[in-house]
């Protein structure tokens, strides 16, 4: 029998029989999340405003996130052993744990809440406020992503995990926020020491001793996970996890190849749904994401063939640094002023020029470390600049938008350094744009518009004068 949420789930790509199958779980999850009939109108208009729901693939993607949300909320009820990791993370350990046992549920819960309670229900703020009330107070430049995690647990929306995988590999605030999970909820922690800052100019090379060190850290974290979760990591877990994620990456590559077209066939806000899914889910979200891409790819191929897209043909092309996780309006704003965004840097990880792990390492931890360091993204500004430079060539870019979070230590520093060096190296303009990818309370749309519109004007004028 149909219920108040059926239309929203259909909008998010659910088939009738899927809704029937999930009905009990949906209702149980909604009860815990505090979602009711009064939220449907907002969610419907919010989804339509921010996503291209004319594309079935996009709707299925939103559905993949909803399924991940339901699995997260009900993981304890499902009898799973629960592991949380941070974002951006060293994904390998989580993937290996997931590949080793069907009884383990591993995800980045904050990202799941951002993409569902934020992007679908526009109801993230109470969760952030709960995070603020539980150890991550407002006004202290603390990251809203971590507030979402702490808030979600504190409100009882998401379960207290059995283990937290914590690392300062990219963000040192993340591991400190995970301390709170231990302090407040008694959750054991497996730390991966991430002292990985590489020397300027080192990338694309990376020192073997750092692979050994990071690898050893990952190996000891995995051992602790085995002990805490009472599971055994299967010998071929790395290969198995790679196999499971290969279909996802391959489809994403096909999509990114389509984004080379002029005009770009779809808003990068939709691809961000995929980018984030690949960095947040190790379970059903990934499998559903693969299916969604199989629908989205032919839809976009049609658009490319027809010469239609998210912005006008000939629009200046820019790469942005981070996708907007909780609220895609900033990404939409960039496109509204006539800029094409074929890529975010995180997508350049898979869709930019290939990176080359050495593949000569033996332990599971070292294999993961080798892969991570080869990407060049998270361990040094120089690596980031080089990936951007490479992305510019691949995607024929006209400029860069370094959108950064004021409260993100690595991002805020990196954005200004990157602006300086990228402008010098490529001769292309860089806009350093302060946003908050995880909290739409923290920015003013009016001032963002002025900056982005001015930047678009600059790029269009430059393009026009180059033609003349």
């Amino acid at each position, binding site marked *: 029998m149909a219920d108040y949420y059926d239309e929203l789930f259909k909008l998010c790509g659910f088939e009738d029989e899927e809704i029937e199958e999930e009905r009990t779980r949906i209702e149980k999850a909604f009860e815990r999340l505090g979602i009711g009939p009064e939220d449907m109108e907002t969610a419907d208009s919010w989804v339509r405003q921010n996503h291209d729901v004319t594309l079935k693939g996009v709707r299925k993607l939103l559905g993949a996130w909803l399924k991940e949300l339901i699995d997260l909320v009900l993981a304890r009820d499902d009898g799973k052993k629960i592991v949380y990791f941070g974002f951006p993370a060293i994904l390998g350990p989580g993937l290996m744990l997931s590949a080793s046992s069907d009884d383990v549920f591993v995800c980045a819960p904050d990202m799941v809440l951002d993409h569902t309670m934020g992007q679908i229900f526009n109801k993230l703020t109470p969760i952030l406020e709960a995070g603020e009330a539980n150890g991550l107070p407002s006004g202290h430049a603390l990251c809203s992503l971590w507030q979402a995690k702490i808030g979600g647990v504190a409100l009882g929306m998401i379960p207290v995990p059995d283990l937290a995988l914590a690392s300062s590999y990219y963000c040192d605030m993340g591991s400190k926020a995970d301390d709170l999970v231990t302090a407040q909820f008694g959750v054991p922690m497996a730390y991966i020491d991430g002292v990985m800052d590489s020397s300027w100019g080192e990338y694309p090379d990376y020192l073997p001793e750092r692979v050994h060190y990071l690898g050893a850290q990952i190996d000891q974290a995995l051992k602790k996970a085995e002990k805490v979760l009472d599971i055994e990591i299967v010998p071929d877990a790395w290969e198995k996890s790679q196999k499971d994620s290969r279909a996802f990456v391959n489809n994403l590559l096909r999509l990114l190849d389509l984004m080379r077209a002029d005009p770009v066939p779809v808003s990068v806000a939709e691809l961000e749904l995929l980018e984030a899914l690949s960095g947040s889910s190790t379970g059903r979200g990934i499998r559903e994401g693969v299916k969604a891409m199989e629908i989205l790819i032919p839809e976009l191929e049609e658009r490319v063939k027809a010469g239609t897209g998210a912005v006008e043909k000939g629009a200046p092309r820019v790469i942005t640094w981070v996708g907007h996780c909780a609220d895609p309006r900033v990404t939409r704003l960039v496109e509204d002023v006539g800029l094409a965004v074929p890529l975010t840097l995180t997508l350049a990880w898979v869709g930019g020029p290939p990176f080359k792990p050495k593949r000569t390492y033996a332990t599971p931890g070292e294999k993961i470390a080798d892969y991570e360091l080869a990407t060049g993204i998270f361990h040094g500004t120089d690596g980031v600049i080089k990936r951007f430079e490479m992305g510019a060539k691949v995607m024929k870019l006209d400029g860069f938008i370094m959108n950064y979070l004021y409260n993100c230590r690595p991002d805020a520093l990196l954005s200004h350094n990157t602006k300086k060096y990228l402008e010098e190296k490529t001769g292309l303009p860089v806009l350093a744009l*302060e946003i908050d990818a995880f909290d739409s309370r923290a920015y003013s749309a009016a001032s963002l518009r002025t*900056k982005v519109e*001015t930047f678009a004007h600059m790029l269009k004028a430059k393009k026009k004068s180059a033609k003349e």
Partner: protein
Amino acid sequence: MLVAGVDVGAATAKAVILGDSGILGYSIRPTGHNAKLAANKVTQEALEKAGLSISIDDLDYVVSTGYARGSIDLANKTFTEIICHAKGAHFVIPSTRFIIDMGGQDSKAIEVDPEGNVTNFIMNDKCAAGTGRFIEVMAQVLEVESVAEMGPLALQSKKPCCISSTCTVFAETEVVVLRAEGKDRKDLIAGVHRAVASRVAAMASSLTIRPDAVFTGGVAKNIGVRRFLEEKIGMELRVPEEPQIIGALGAALFAREGFKGDN
């Protein structure tokens, strides 16, 4: 040809009327609570000051700028205030290569090429401490009758106080405490001006500041801020005759181009 540029900012609305012979008239008024109304009124006033007894509907082309640019019904086209300030400053001072624009509620630094095109910019919009509003608040706290008196008073100080706070609200507290400690009012006023200038200079220094550097926006009329800014950036700032209308003038110049392009 009769065109207008309308700059509706958070604090004031400005309009410039351009004819074939150049600037015919301009007007400045508080924006108030209704941006559309302010745009219409300021444009009508500018027409009257130009000695033209026509209505705004008779204008050939209108370009709007400023925060409320998108909601101005009479506009044929919109441009951001950053682009318009560059256009306007380059028109009045063709050697302009760098602009510091300080308005009521934000401040901007803009690099421009020899043609007046924006090549780089930075904008402060999260904090009132680098804006005209900061000086207005401090004028009230220090009981200076008119904001226009603040700049000259600041220059009379020989020992500006150090206002360490970077927030308007907390700086107010700081100034009250310093007054209670018996600090000279002129030194406090100078300290306020130096604090504003320091904040804006720090922002501008992330770009390449080169001559001719031009100071626009309402705060450019304040001699105290100008002097402290010059000291901080180590360069003379040129100030147009009426710096507050430079954005509206740029918009009017775009309107002229738009009219010619459309005809």
